[in-house]
């Protein structure tokens, strides 16, 4: 054989190049980038009007919500390029590994949309204020939320044959995980009976842990274990499942 590698497709083969492809694709979408913070901005204004004392919680929530949103964008993007462009046929019938395709796409979206989130993160650091340990915790929690959302998004994207059907589900996904639970407001304001559910949802679990770390919300040891343990298990489990699913769905049945 005269070109490329003669070996079989290695795990994560082609990740850097496909990541760069996705960065280029997303970087041309300046309007989408500009509007990516609209919901967070509106919710911050609501919180500011209703209770300015909670703006610190809301700013931290906006950072975590944004990392969730950047992951969730994978749902629309993966479905769009598969259904409309047949790009998965082009890329996956070749030496690029399925997991590199999934992860490259997810990381590319993250990179391009990260700028405005960093700005909100800096604001949060100043307003709350966050110390170095809390900032590291925020980064770790944001990463776990992003991995979970990107994994769920990619797996869900493979279930659709029509892009229009996705719009309803992505809106549901966005609101149920990001807007409704205590991400922009303290866990203490959420109904007691539903708090375990909120502590199991990645964005609200991460927000609750940040509220606990900054002294806004008191959490019991059990609640901390539930939120932190759940988040780690979800991030690792969902990522592993998404990699498995990406490999499995290269071939239709």
């Amino acid at each position: 054989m005269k070109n490329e590698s003669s070996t079989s497709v290695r795990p994560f083969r082609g990740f850097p190049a496909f990541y760069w492809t996705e960065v280029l694709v997303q970087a041309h979408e300046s309007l989408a980038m500009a509007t990516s913070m609209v919901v967070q901005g509106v919710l911050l204004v609501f919180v500011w009007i209703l209770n300015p004392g909670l703006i610190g919680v809301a700013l931290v929530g906006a950072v975590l919500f944004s990392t969730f949103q950047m992951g969730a964008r994978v749902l629309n993007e993966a479905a769009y390029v598969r259904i409309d462009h047949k790009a998965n046929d082009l890329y996956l019938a070749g030496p690029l590994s399925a997991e590199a395709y999934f992860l490259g796409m997810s990381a590319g979206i993250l990179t391009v949309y990260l700028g405005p989130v960093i700005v909100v993160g800096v604001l949060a650091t100043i307003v709350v204020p966050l110390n170095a340990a809390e900032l590291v915790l925020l980064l770790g929690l944001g990463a776990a939320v992003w991995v979970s959302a990107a994994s769920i998004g990619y797996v869900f994207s493979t279930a659709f044959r029509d892009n229009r059907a996705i719009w309803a589900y992505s809106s549901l996904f966005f609101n149920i995980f990001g807007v409704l639970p205590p991400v922009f407001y303290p866990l203490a304001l959420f109904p007691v009976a539903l708090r375990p559910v909120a502590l199991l949802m990645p964005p609200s679990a991460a927000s609750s842990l940040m509220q606990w770390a900054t002294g806004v919300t008191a959490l019991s040891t059990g609640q901390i274990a539930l939120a932190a343990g759940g988040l780690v298990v979800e991030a690792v489990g969902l990522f592993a499942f998404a990699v498995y699913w990406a490999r499995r769905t290269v071939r239709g049945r």
Partner: protein
Amino acid sequence: MTDEALWSRDLRKVYRTKGSPEVEALAGVSMNVRRGERVALLGRNGAGKTTFLKIASTLLRPTSGEIRVFGFDIDRTPERARPYIAVVPQEGKPFFHLTPREQVYTYLRARGLTRETAKARTEESLHRMGLTEFADRLSITLSGGQRQRTMVATVIATEAPLLFLDEPTIGMDPFARRSVWSSLRLLTQRGSTILLTTHYLDEAEALSQRLYIVERGRVLVSGTSDDLKRAVGGTLKVLLLRGATRVEQFRSFGECVPDGDSLSVIVAPERLGELMDVAVRNQLTATVGPVTLEEAFLRVVGRSIDEE
């Protein structure tokens, strides 16, 4: 590594969808493509061509049967074959927010080519497909034909050992189609193997060394285009003006098809003189020409439909 680029035996594919009846897309397709060949897969819409291509390119699992790419069993170990293949998917589109230059280059990089090789191949491929002028425009601003050229440029730039092209020239103008043909010929001269589907029978005839006609998931005929023409009774077609009422006098020469008040007769070259005598005796004006692949295709597939 075998000399057979692609080999399949009794390949079957049944689509099962909840609430819908089963669809048997492939009903036992056996095929072999040798390294360096250009082979066309022809058939009506829904005949099974794309299903076969998807299975062969490791994107779909067969229901039963065997299929190998360069000797690798792609049902069991598709990842072994993937480094050797590249695909132009049916109705595939480049990323709208990449330029053709970015599309081809990043694709080659994602396949593991070095920067230098990817850059050189990108420029050569864009030039071959006549895309140099548009190479730095976002694909969203290009016409449908230019986007399709970008897809073909992307895949031929890989120079992969086995290329699958599903209707690669759809929407292209005649000049662009010929650019694709010459690029594909060059690729096979360099050692690549090509399996393509097309509904343009002139393309199949100009480009492929062998062809397979598929109908309802089965191979009806395989061979060269001349083999196919001979299979319909001759390589010449005689059009007899106002001959439609004299069908009986010409039936013994070959297949007769009335066309308005004219009659077309497929005839072997050795019986042409005899047929022309009969035409002259009946004072009919005759025009002789070669049987086209399209005519042969229509007759072969038409016969099969009649038998069904």
